[in-house]
Each structure stands twice: as structure tokens, then as C-alpha cells.
């Protein structure tokens, strides 16, 4: 039999998406269902003094209203009650209505009278941690009261050894992943049991959070994910579904809330804006002696996943270059702006932007080519110098600080070399015209991912002799509904088409972690592989009894059970004897000996129109070590998509806040400018020939790493083309033109 692994089998859930049959949360229709709408704060910071709903509740067609004064006790997160009498950003939830249709619900919102007492507010994270800044939450704006400081060795000693020190400050904007599907929740009660359909990255986590918020037994809550119009790591918070559930309970009828595009951008979760200062010391031969990064990260009004994200912003500075003396100071700050959260690669793009611009400067200062500098200094398979501090036999964190631990696999050098070759780096000679300047740039990257939380999967041999893979993960568009059955088929020894899949429904799937952190293929994949191997053994054992042949003589293949003697059993015949057989496997992925990380090297050619400041990316090479590639066509799609998506972060996207009022001014696809097909460059994807010893069939994390290298590769290319260096993203025409003007003034 041919291996299923490494085959570009078709994306399993795409057919329904192409015909319109796929059901997203917004497509759910229930008898008697009402439409919900949320009233949002017009103020950046205020106390809700009183809410008068009398006129709204008298409006014909209004069935339920919920306000902070009548909401059940309960929390979505430690800093987020179901509804609060203090609102902390323009767009924060204040109240909600369920009515016969959306028009009536909207009308009812306009009839709700809210008395606000405005409070001082702060929108700049640097100002937020100055003494006297208005507190967004009691306890101050610096989360945890102090920065997280991660240090290996001693940076002061490292800088003392350096011949050259490079330092500068950088900023990256808040930008929304702006998933095309705005958040939707549908809630329906049957007695004390609640069913919720929602756009979800993890139905089991949502089930848990809903049950905690509503004070219900977990088993009384069912969350159904269905098709998911993407999340890129977010759609994690459950406030929308909890509010929907409260409305449905009060109305005694199912309720659906479809948020608007503006609500999705403002009240969803975006990539955190950052301010980073980065300092690197190198010897005159180009050896890196010290790296020190300091990042102020804006978590907005609520914490969400901020603590994890701020830590990850430091991984590049701490681990990408082989260096004994490194330090990262991370400040996570509240402001009265929309909340940051988990968005594809979680802080790594922000950190790598600063690091890889400085690395280019260091290369230049040492008289080296950028590629040569990376080849000399990148972290190798042996990991960082230093002593392991994680106790032996303990699973090693995927973002360790300590040295002395090798990687399970590390194809970074191969990525750099093969990427540079494919790009034509060393013999690149741009053909610039007077106003169209071309240049090249590159960046390298490291990313944690792969091992996630404990993962459970089930495999079932059905009564009709077919197979079903059952996992609690969600396919948010990344392809787990295709890749996990591939793994199951491979482990069983059958064809891909012989394994059906069940995903995304908390009632009928085992507990699973969320689809985030590039962990699904790795972690859920290991559980699926284990379950499939266990099922295969069980079936061979049963067949051995039925056929009265030793198990060692039997094989399982696409036709059923076969033996060397020629006697065998079809799956249908076997199933008649065994009935349905289900096995469950639980794994805690990770390694006690190795760090499991993914790597990459990105190369870009850009053309800058110096008349207009417009940047076009002409050509892009993305070389990745994500271990063995299980489905090449889906993997290429992921990498291409990740690169193109982050061209938005690099060149056009940003959430803009009015400084005087605090409102987000551009929460639309028109003004929060995501790339279109016209911006899409020629992208070549290369995978290093790496087979990881830990991951399922050698795979490692792939979903997020492509996002990490884009901004520095493109901005380094802009500098190569024009001599101006964009330190503040996005690199919009106004910024390029202003920098060109400064350059001319400097020359004059």
C-alpha cells in the first residue's frame, strides 16, 4: 500500500464549502429563534450608573433584555464578568436585546437609556504605565505589577565583550485577523440543558467556560462548532455566547447573535500592538555576544491571552541566535482600547520584526552579507550554550530560557541555504528604474508550537466495517479534518477515504485542546496515531481469534485482514463478529530530552515607487522546517496564506484609535486594509527535508511560523531598495514618503 502520509489528498471539508452545504454558526436556523443585538459603550471608560429599559421592553417584538444590573453573577475570565457596570473601551458590551428580528432588536437598543459617568482613560500603552495614569482595572495598568524578565547569562557582560552595539526602537500596530466570518452564537435551552452553536476554536474549552460563567454542570452544556469561518488563533472568548445564552433563557426561545464586521474588529481579538527597543552586541567578526529586547505590549481593556503572548514576543531575542547572554523584558499593559488576544504566532512577529532589522544592521556593521551573518550565528541543532535547569524526566517547555538542551530537529541552516539559492540571493542584481527602486531582504525565524496540552482521540471500527476518527478539535480552516484522518489511515494501514471523521461537537467528541498555537497536527495527531495503532492491534487480535491464526501472521490492509496463508476477513465480516469497537488514546505530547521548535527563512524582493511611496512585493521565497510534511498541497496553502496575510500587517493593516475620544476609527474591510488578490505576490514555498523524531510521522508545527518572518524580510528589502528603514509598521505610503523626504533633507 502507498503511504497516505505525504500525499496531497483533497481537503475533506472543502466540498461542502464549495456547494454551500457547509453549515457555519450563522447558518443555524431553529424554530422560534430570535435575533439578538448588543448595546456597546460609546465611551472609552465609564461607569454605567443606570440603565432604563422601559421603552425598549415595551416595543412589540422584544422578548428579553439583559443589563449589568440584572445579569447573573458569573465571569467569562477573571477580569471579565458577563456584563460589567464599568466599561473600558469604545465598543465594550453594556446590554443586549433579543427580539423578533434584527430590525426590532436594533430599534430596541436605540430605546435603551444608559446613564454613564465618564472616567479618565488612556489609549497609549507607554502612557498607561506612567505614574498617575488612569487605571483601566483596579490594581494598575502594568499586568502583574512588574515586567516579566527572562535572562540567560548576563547581558552586561555580553555587551562588554562586543565591538559593535546596535540599538533602536520599533513599533507594530494592533491589527485584526478580521476573520471573514464575524463571531456568531446561537443558544437554545432544553430545560436545564444548554446547546450553543458558535464560531469556535475549541468546543471543549468553550463548554468549560460557558459552564463556569453560567454556574452549570459542564455536562449540561453542549457546544457545536460546525464549519468555522476562521479564527487564526482567536474567537476564544465566550462573552458573546454567554450573553446569547442568558437572552435565550429569559426569552424562553432560541436566540442567535450575529455580530457585525465592525463588532468583529473592535470587540473581537486582535494582534497586540507593541513598542520594542532592541539592542544587539557583536564582535567585529560578526559573532553575536548579547541581545537585549524590551517590549511594551498593549493588551487593551482585557487580559485575554496577553500574558502568554508577551512572553512569546521574546522568543526570537532569547533563542534565535546562538548567544550566551540574552535578556527580554516584557511589559504587558492595560489601556482603554479593544482587547488584544491570540492571533497567529502570538507575539513572535512583533519580536522578530525588531530582532531581524537589527540583525541586518549588525551584519552590515560587521561587513557581512545578511545571509552570511545568519549562517554564522543562527542557533544550531545543539541548542543554546548553558546549563539545563529543567529537571531530567520533565517535559521541556517549547520556549525554554535555559541553554544546554538540543532541539529534536533543527533545519534552520537548510532553510537559509535552500531559500537563498531559490531566491537567487547571492547574484541578485536589481533592475531599478528612476522612480521604481527594487531591493531584496531576508529574515529568519524560530517558533514554538507543536506540543500542546493533553490530547485525547478516539478511533471507532463501525458495525458496518468502516472507520471513524473522533477528535474534539475544530478545523478552523487549517485542515485538521483532512490531516488527522490521514494520520489515522496511515496508522491503521488503510486508505484515506476509508476513515471518516467526527470533529467539533463537545457532546460526542473527547476533550481536546483548542485549535491554536500550531499544535493540532502535532498533539491531536499523536493521539489519533496512538488510537489508530491501538485499534489496529485490537482488530488484529480479534481476527486472530476468528481465524484461529496467530496474530503475527495477520496484516491489516485496505481490503481487511489478510494472512500469508491466504485466509482473511473483510472489514464487514470482521465487524459482524466484533460489532463496533472503539478505542481511546490520551497523550501528553512533548519531550523530556529535546526542544521541539519550527524554523524558517524568508526572502523578499520588493519594488518601491518613490513617487507614491507604494511598496509592491514582487517575489517571495518562504523556506520552512516544519518537520515532515503530511499533506504538501495543504501545507503550501498554509504557508502562502500566512505570508500573504502578514503582508497586511507589514504594509497596510492597523487599528486606528482616535486619541481624544478613544474610538476605533477604521473597523471595516474598507479601512482596515487587508490584502486582496491584487497584492498577492509570486510565493515559492520550500520545505526542509527534516523528519522530527517526536512529532507524528515526523511532523512539526506549521500553521503559525509563516507569519513570523514576513515583516522583517519585506522591510529589510525596502531598506535595500531605498535606503530608508521603516521602524514603525505598517509601511504605508505616507510613512515611506515622509522617510524619503527626511533622507533628502539629510542629503541636502
Amino acid at each position, binding site marked *: 500500500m502507498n503511504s497516505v502520509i505525504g500525499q496531497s489528498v483533497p481537503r475533506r471539508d472543502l466540498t461542502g464549502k464549495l456547494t454551500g452545504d457547509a453549515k457555519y454558526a450563522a447558518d443555524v436556523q431553529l424554530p422560534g429563534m430570535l435575533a439578538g443585538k448588543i448595546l456597546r459603550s460609546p465611551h472609552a471608560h465609564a461607569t454605567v450608573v443606570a440603565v432604563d429599559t422601559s421603552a425598549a421592553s415595551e416595543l412589540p417584538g422584544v422578548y428579553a433584555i439583559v443589563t449589568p444590573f440584572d445579569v447573573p453573577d458569573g465571569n467569562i475570565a477573571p477580569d471579565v464578568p458577563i456584563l460589567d457596570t464599568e466599561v473600558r473601551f469604545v465598543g465594550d458590551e453594556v446590554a443586549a436585546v433579543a427580539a423578533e428580528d434584527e430590525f426590532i432588536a436594533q430599534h430596541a437598543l436605540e430605546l435603551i437609556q444608559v446613564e454613564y459617568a465618564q472616567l479618565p482613560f488612556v489609549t497609549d500603552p507607554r502612557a498607561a504605565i506612567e505614574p498617575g495614569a488612569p487605571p483601566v482595572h483596579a490594581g494598575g495598568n502594568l499586568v502583574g505589577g512588574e515586567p516579566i524578565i527572562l535572562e540567560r547569562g548576563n547581558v552586561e557582560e555580553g555587551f562588554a565583550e562586543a565591538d559593535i552595539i546596535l540599538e533602536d526602537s520599533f513599533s507594530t500596530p494592533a491589527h485584526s485577523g478580521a476573520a*471573514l466570518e464575524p463571531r456568531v452564537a446561537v443558544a437554545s435551552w432544553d430545560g436545564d440543558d444548554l446547546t450553543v452553536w458558535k464560531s469556535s476554536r475549541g468546543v471543549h474549552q468553550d463548554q468549560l467556560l460557558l459552564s463556569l460563567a453560567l454556574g452549570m454542570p459542564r455536562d449540561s452544556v453542549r457546544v457545536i462548532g460546525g464549519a468555522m469561518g*476562521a479564527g487564526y488563533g482567536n474567537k476564544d472568548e465566550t462573552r458573546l455566547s454567554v450573553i446569547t445564552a442568558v437572552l435565550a433563557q429569559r426569552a424562553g426561545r432560541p436566540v442567535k447573535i450575529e455580530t457585525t464586521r465592525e463588532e468583529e474588529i473592535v470587540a473581537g481579538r486582535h494582534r497586540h500592538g507593541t513598542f520594542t527597543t532592541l539592542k544587539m552586541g557583536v564582535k567585529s567578526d560578526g559573532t553575536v555576544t548579547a541581545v537585549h529586547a524590551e517590549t511594551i505590549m498593549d493588551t487593551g481593556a482585557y487580559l485575554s491571552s496577553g500574558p502568554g503572548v508577551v512572553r512569546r514576543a521574546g522568543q526570537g531575542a532569547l533563542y534565535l541566535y546562538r548567544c550566551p547572554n540574552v535578556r527580554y523584558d516584557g511589559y504587558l499593559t492595560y489601556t482603554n482600547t479593544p482587547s488584544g488576544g491570540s492571533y497567529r504566532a502570538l507575539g513572535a512577529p512583533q519580536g522578530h520584526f525588531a530582532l531581524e532589522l537589527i540583525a541586518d544592521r549588525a551584519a552590515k556593521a560587521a561587513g557581512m552579507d545578511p545571509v552570511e551573518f545568519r549562517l554564522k550565528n543562527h542557533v544550531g541543532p545543539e541548542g543554546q550554550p548553558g546549563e539545563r535547569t529543567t529537571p531530567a524526566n520533565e517535559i521541556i517547555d517549547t520556549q525554554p530560557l535555559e541553554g544546554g538542551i538540543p532541539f529534536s530537529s533543527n533545519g534552520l541552516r537548510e532553510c537559509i541555504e535552500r531559500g537563498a539559492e531559490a531566491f537567487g540571493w547571492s547574484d541578485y542584481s536589481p533592475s531599478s528604474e528612476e522612480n521604481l527602486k527594487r531591493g531584496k531582504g531576508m529574515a529568519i525565524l524560530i517558533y514554538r508550537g507543536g506540543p500542546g496540552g493533553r490530547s485525547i482521540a478516539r478511533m471507532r471500527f463501525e458495525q458496518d466495517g468502516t472507520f471513524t476518527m473522533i477528535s474534539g478539535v475544530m478545523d478552523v480552516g487549517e485542515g485538521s479534518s483532512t490531516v488527522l484522518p490521514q494520520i489515522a489511515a496511515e496508522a491503521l494501514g488503510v486508505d484515506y477515504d476509508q476513515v471518516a471523521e467526527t470533529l467539533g461537537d463537545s457532546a460526542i467528541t473527547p476533550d481536546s485542546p483548542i485549535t491554536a498555537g500550531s499544535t493540532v497536527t502535532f498533539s491531536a495527531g499523536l493521539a489519533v496515531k496512538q488510537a489508530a495503532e491501538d485499534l489496529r492491534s485490537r482488530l488484529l487480535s480479534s481476527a486472530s481469534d476468528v481465524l484461529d491464526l496467530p496474530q503475527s501472521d495477520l496484516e491489516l490492509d485496505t481490503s481487511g485482514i489478510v494472512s500469508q496463508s491466504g485466509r482473511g476477513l473483510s472489514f464487514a465480516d470482521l465487524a459482524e463478529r466484533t460489532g463496533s469497537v472503539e478505542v481511546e488514546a490520551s497523550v501528553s505530547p512533548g519531550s523530556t530530552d529535546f526542544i521541539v521548535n519550527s524554523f524558517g527563512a524568508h526572502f523578499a524582493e520588493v519594488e518601491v515607487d518613490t513617487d507614491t511611496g507604494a511598496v509592491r512585493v514582487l517575489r517571495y521565497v518562504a523556506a520552512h522546517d516544519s518537520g515532515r510534511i503530511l499533506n504538501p*498541497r495543504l501545507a503550501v496553502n498554509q504557508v*502562502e*496564506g500566512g505570508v500573504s496575510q502578514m503582508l497586511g500587517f507589514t504594509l497596510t493593516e492597523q487599528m486606528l484609535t482616535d486619541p481624544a475620544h478613544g474610538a476605533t476609527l477604521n473597523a471595516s474591510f474598507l479601512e482596515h486594509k487587508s490584502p486582496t488578490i491584487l497584492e498577492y505576490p509570486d510565493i515559492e514555498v520550500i520545505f526542509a527535508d527534516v523528519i522530527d523524531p517526536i512529532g507524528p510521522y515526523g511532523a512539526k508545527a506549521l500553521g503559525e511560523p509563516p507569519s513570523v518572518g514576513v515583516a522583517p524580510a519585506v522591510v529589510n528589502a525596502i531598506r535595500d531598495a531605498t535606503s530608508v528603514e521603516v521602524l514603525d509598521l505598517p509601511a504605508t505610503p505616507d510613512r515611506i514618503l515622509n522617510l524619503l523626504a527626511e533622507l533628502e533633507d539629510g542629503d541636502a
Partner: protein
Amino acid sequence: MGYAEVTPYTLDITLEVNGQSHDLEVDTRWTLLHVLRGELGLTGAKRGCDRGECGACTVLLDDLPVNACMTLVATISGRRVRTVEGLSSLGSLHPVQQAFLDNDGGQCGFCTPGFVMSTTSLLEKNSSPSDDEIRSALAGNICRCNAYGRIIESVRSARRAE
């Protein structure tokens, strides 16, 4: 502000959707997208922005791609609408759909029906579009997964298949 008048206005219209004629009493505020999704149960067209800015609701109105979210249904009585549900028949995919499946022309799928309709219209008018013509014709459809590379490949493949 306030509502001087809260009673909706309604109109009777006819609409041909995927070859089938419908007589409908519509609220004047209803968009074509609302009618397709809410009244006719055709949920292939998606609501991504409700402002004509993303193309997820693209359908063909008298063979031209339009944003269903920005089309008041009261103004298109008697006209002909095609949606993604009308492409495949008897379980077999339309060549454009097949090309998208074969070339992995989507990820989360939320934009996919819109891209399929824009592509269908393009190939009906021009059976061998250049790459630039493909890009221009799809410029009003946003794919946030940015699966544009595979989408372009899908349309190239459909171009050959047609």
C-alpha cells in the same frame, strides 16, 4: 433620532433564483442576501461585512457578479439570480467547483462561494482569461486566509477545463 414610523413597508415581488421563480412579500429593508439566507434557506452566500466590502455574498444578478448584501430586493423584482447552490446538480460539482476542490482553492471556506461565483461569471464571459484578468475579476473578493495562490491556481485549472 427616534422612529417616527415603526411599521415596516412591504412589497410583493417575484424573483427567479437558480431557475426557480419565487413570489415573495418583502420588507423594503431586506437585502437580497437576507432573502437568500433567511427566506429561501440558501446559505451559501455569506455575510462577511454587510457593506459590499468583502464579496462573501457575491451572487450573479442577470449574470453579473454583485454584492447581495448591498442589493435591496425590492428593487430587483423580475430579475434572475444565481447562487452557488445552483451550480452543482445531482451531486456532481460544476467545473469551477471541481477545480477549486482539486487545487485546494480555499481554507476556512467562508469566502469560497463568493470566489466561485466571481470565477463562474468571469469564465462565462471569457473562457481563457489571462492571469491579470483573473486577478482583476476576483479583486472584489477577500480571502482572509489569503489562499490566493491556490485560488489563482484553481481558476487557471478551471480555465483549461471549461
